[in-house]
């Protein structure tokens, strides 16, 4: 056997060996399963996107209906002193429920995700979660906030915060992701003081140092909050 033939056979054996390894790995990792996983995942994402679009449409519809009702009530109130007095009462209640746009002095807070770190704490700890947003909102109310909105979603007296790590769901709204912008109208000085107090928001500040979460705030003489645009129904609680 010539050296050239020997070289050719060796090359052939080498390539055949490599092909065998790759094919074996292909079979082991089951090429079809990942493909199905992707397809299933994409179907879930499509469902979520469709539901999010429906959600946004419904909230837009609710906002339009509330505006139309307000205009009709205004017309009726112009014809009757009693109806006007009632309308004033309801206007005050709507303001406190967050159903009316509000502006005034306040603070704007921005929260951003950090960087994934090693260990179990760093796996999700670098993400801003619903409890962080809940803590910031509670602190703002403690500082004299009269109205608060998270990524444009106004907080009502019945608002709740939930969601998996990195996602925040407020009431019937769409899932929200970082960066989060929390805007509060109210006692600007007191809110700024609390936001700057290193003893507040301890968990968030620890993760800010360790995992790079960003928390910043800025006061403003005039901020605007959109009205609440989700359902404020009470189906079970009735006046006693």
């Amino acid at each position, binding site marked *: 056997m010539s050296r050239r033939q020997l070289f050719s056979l060796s090359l*052939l054996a080498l390539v055949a060996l490599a092909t065998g390894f790759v094919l074996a790995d292909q079979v082991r990792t089951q090429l079809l399963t990942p493909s199905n996983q992707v397809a299933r995942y994409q179907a879930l994402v499509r469902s979520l996107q469709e539901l999010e679009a429906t*959600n946004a449409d419904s909230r837009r519809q609710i906002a339009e209906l509330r505006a139309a009702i307000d205009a009709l009530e205004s*017309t009726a109130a112009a014809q009757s002193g009693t109806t006007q007095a009632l309308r004033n009462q309801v206007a005050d*209640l709507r303001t406190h429920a967050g159903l009316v746009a509000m502006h005034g002095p306040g603070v704007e807070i921005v929260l951003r995700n950090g960087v994934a770190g090693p260990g179990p704490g760093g796996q999700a700890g670098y993400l801003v979660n619903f409890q962080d947003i809940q803590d910031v909102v509670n602190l703002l109310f403690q500082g004299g906030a009269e109205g608060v909105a998270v990524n444009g979603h106004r907080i009502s*007296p019945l608002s709740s915060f939930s969601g998996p790590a990195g996602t925040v769901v407020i009431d019937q709204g769409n899932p929200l992701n970082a960066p989060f912008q929390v805007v509060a109208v109210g006692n600007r000085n007191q809110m700024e003081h609390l936001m700057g107090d290193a003893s507040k928001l301890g968990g968030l500040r620890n993760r800010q140092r360790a995992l790079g979460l960003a928390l910043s705030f800025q006061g403003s003489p005039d901020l605007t909050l959109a009205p609440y645009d989700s359902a404020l129904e009470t189906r079970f609680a009735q006046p*006693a």
Partner: protein
Amino acid sequence: MPSRPSLNAVVVGLLSALLAFVAVVQVRSQFEVERSLSGVDPTTLAFLIDDLHRANDTLARDAGALAARRAALQGGSNQEAAAQLNAEAAQLRVVEGLVPVHGPGVVVTVDAPLTPLDLQDALDNLRAAGAEALALNDQRLVTSSVINGDSEGVTMDGVSVRGPWTLWAIGDPTRLSSAADQMTRALRDDPRVHSAGYRAESDLVIRSTVVQRPFVYGSA
């Protein structure tokens, strides 16, 4: 004159092409999976979808009620407008915690030195499960209620409160019971907790009300 390729060269070429093809497919399929799963895992997506279904049903119901209200007002009757305004005022007083309320719900009792954050989490859990009215140790609470810590314990809207804790929640009894069950199970695993339990009630009464502060800074 160029020499004809040997059989070995043809086989090597074919195998090399096959190797390249399989390697590319393998890398691309793995990359596709990793890229698509790098955001939210499928279980979380399924939960988000379930929540959004429920949220959209609630929004559709609310939109339907508002559309009916607009249709009634389009008649132009003053009496109709007054009736609509009265009904909305009554509902908003319930939402804002300004009047005593009753309805189905749960009572959660916890004997533990809970912190303000624990209490805020518990209240948020119940609100997320559809609580429409809440009271803690006989004090009515809404989202803007301030729960704080002082040297001796917890204050709620400036009032000092001590454990053991009793939480009243009125709302969808099925969802509230499920949330209360999960919450009390988790609490019982907490070494600080002496006892934690709940009971469902078909008609719970919350008599306490919120004292509303007038707005000083914000205007419409």
